[in-house]
């Protein structure tokens, strides 16, 4: 049974400011809720049982308004760094330094918490292809070599082709050729990519930033169809987390009088493929807990 935490609190204000104290409180509360309120340090040992480096894969493609917020990524990283002595480094990363900077991140290649893109000099992509039936891609060295544990810290958005972009699809940013995998609502590509060893063997946790949700005309930012939801989704099950994200998008669409993603013939089909491939669960095997903060 998959457990999904949907945390809610006044984190993102109307003028775009983030209440860091409340954010930190909610993140800790949600992480503890994943494990029946175990102490935070115990929780982190459950998620990261072995020491090593953690990659926090964020999504910064859509600029400052609609990327994983730096405050969220840094607060989370700080919590990990302060409460798990075995985590020697936490790398917040995405495809390019340009996109990271545009999303409001300050690049940092020293210290315990680092921020940089795959295009940083000396990083780059593997030269050997990772292959499945439908995938043939070069992985970012960050995902394949630099880290031992991977955390998908995605942003929740409607996606014109995929239906929904959230935790699983966030890993498209870990390969060199995501543009080749958007046919057929990204199915089976998103799911198959997540079965490859650099992701499947390292993925530990999905957190979805749903503070501001683009529920229509995504993945780019359109204020008319973006809703301040002030939610964060946590799950050890990457499929379940995305499934909950999908439901949030469809609720917002209904509220706005828009057809559902299924009615627009673009439900995130890759979630069912992901379930069939053993990556997680969709609605039938899921417990959703709400956390207020």
């Amino acid at each position, binding site marked *: 049974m998959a457990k999904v935490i949907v945390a809610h609190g006044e984190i993102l204000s109307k003028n775009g400011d983030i209440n860091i104290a409340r954010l930190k409180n909610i993140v800790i509360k949600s992480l503890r809720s994943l494990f029946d309120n175990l102490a935070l340090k115990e929780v982190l040992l459950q998620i990261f049982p072995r020491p090593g480096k953690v990659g926090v894969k964020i999504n910064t493609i*859509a600029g400052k308004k609609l990327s994983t917020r730096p405050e969220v990524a840094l607060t989370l990283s700080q919590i990990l760094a302060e409460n798990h002595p075995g985590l020697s480094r936490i790398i917040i990363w995405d495809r390019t330094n340009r996109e990271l900077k545009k999303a409001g991140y300050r690049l940092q290649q020293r210290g315990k918490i680092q921020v940089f893109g795959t295009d940083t000099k000396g990083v780059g992509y593997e030269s050997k*292809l990772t292959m499945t039936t439908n995938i043939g891609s070069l992985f970012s060295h960050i995902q394949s070599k630099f880290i031992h544990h991977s955390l998908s810290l995605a942003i929740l958005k409607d996606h014109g082709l995929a239906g929904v972009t959230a935790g699983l699809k966030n890993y498209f940013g870990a390969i*060199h050729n995501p543009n*080749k995998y958007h*046919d057929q609502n990204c199915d089976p590509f998103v799911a198959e990519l997540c079965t490859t060893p650099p992701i499947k063997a390292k993925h530990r946790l999905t957190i979805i930033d749903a503070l501001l949700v683009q529920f229509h005309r995504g993945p*780019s*930012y359109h204020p008319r169809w973006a809703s301040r939801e002030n939610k964060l989704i946590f799950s050890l099950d990457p499929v379940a987390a995305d499934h909950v994200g999908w439901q949030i998008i469809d609720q917002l669409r209904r509220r706005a009088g828009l057809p559902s993603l299924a009615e627009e013939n673009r439900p995130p089909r890759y979630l069912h493929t992901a379930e069939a491939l053993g990556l997680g669960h969709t609605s039938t095997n899921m417990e959703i807990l709400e956390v207020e903060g």
Partner: protein
Amino acid sequence: MALFGPRALPEICRDLDALEIPPQLSKVEARYYQKLPDKEIECQLCPRQCRLGNKERGYCGVRENSEGTYYTLVYGKACSVHVDPIEKKPFFHFYPGQITLSLATAGCNVNCKFCQNWEISQVRPEQVHHFDFPPRMVVDTAKKYDCPIIAYTYTEPVVFYEYMVDTAKLGRRAGLKSVVVTGGHINPEPLEELISVVEAIKVDLKSFTQDFYDQYVRGKLQPVLEAIKKIAASPIWLEIVYLVIPTLNDSVKEIKNLSRWIKAEVGPDVPLHFSRFHPMYLLRNLPPTPISTLERAHQIAREEGLNYVYIGNVPGHQAESTYCPRCGTLLIKRWGFEVSKINLKDGKCPQCQTPIPGIWD
């Protein structure tokens, strides 16, 4: 007629090294797209017709929507530049023995599992070294190295359409010819403009079934066939290459259907090259094509009435050479990309006077 074999030009490499710059992309407005509400666009260059939101790139990875305007990121950004014999493209009936200044940018609008150049075709422009090589410099370089022909090749030239068209126009004014090596995945309107500025197009027809295009190309067959027919009906020169992949597109039935279609829709005189496959990219579990399979394909196509059928990627094979379809006289002798003998008189067989279609002089 000047005859050249492949030759190394270290000087050109040095020149180009000097031009290498940190990966900076172009931002030149693309042609053939439609602006849509909410800063979306629809690309109308190729049959994919990618519909893209702000900040998104097309399937090709080299064209990007920025605030509702569509840009090519590779205008004047060549990632591969070489001097090649025209036979390497291959063109066998178009200025045989001539050399070409051949160039490519990153990107492709399909994803063939057997791509020979995937390191440059299946990447984004920022993931590959490239040169700042604008059209004027291409033309000047071609002249400097005595290349009468510019070839747009290696990756998929359709994705660097604007760069190719502008270079071809400039080249024509300077007395240079332009040839295109393409998968033929292009919409009719841009193809029409392309036809008006180049002298020859070679189309890689990957298979004769949609199933193969679905599984191994990620593209559509019908638009490619339409493109071939359009080129054949135009004044420019056309050749067709068919890469024969063991067990996947080499059945007698498929080769027969292909040959019949070419004869009926394009005509019996279009050169058809059956090329040998070598394991590459995502298709490494198959052996190289047996020579006997290529010879069988060659025989089928000849029996179906095609006059100029070649076998490629098998250096030294007799089907690399051109023979008179009427009397069998050897007209152009080739070994690999080398032309060692041209035995044509005013574009005709010297024995029986049969006109041999092509652009010879």
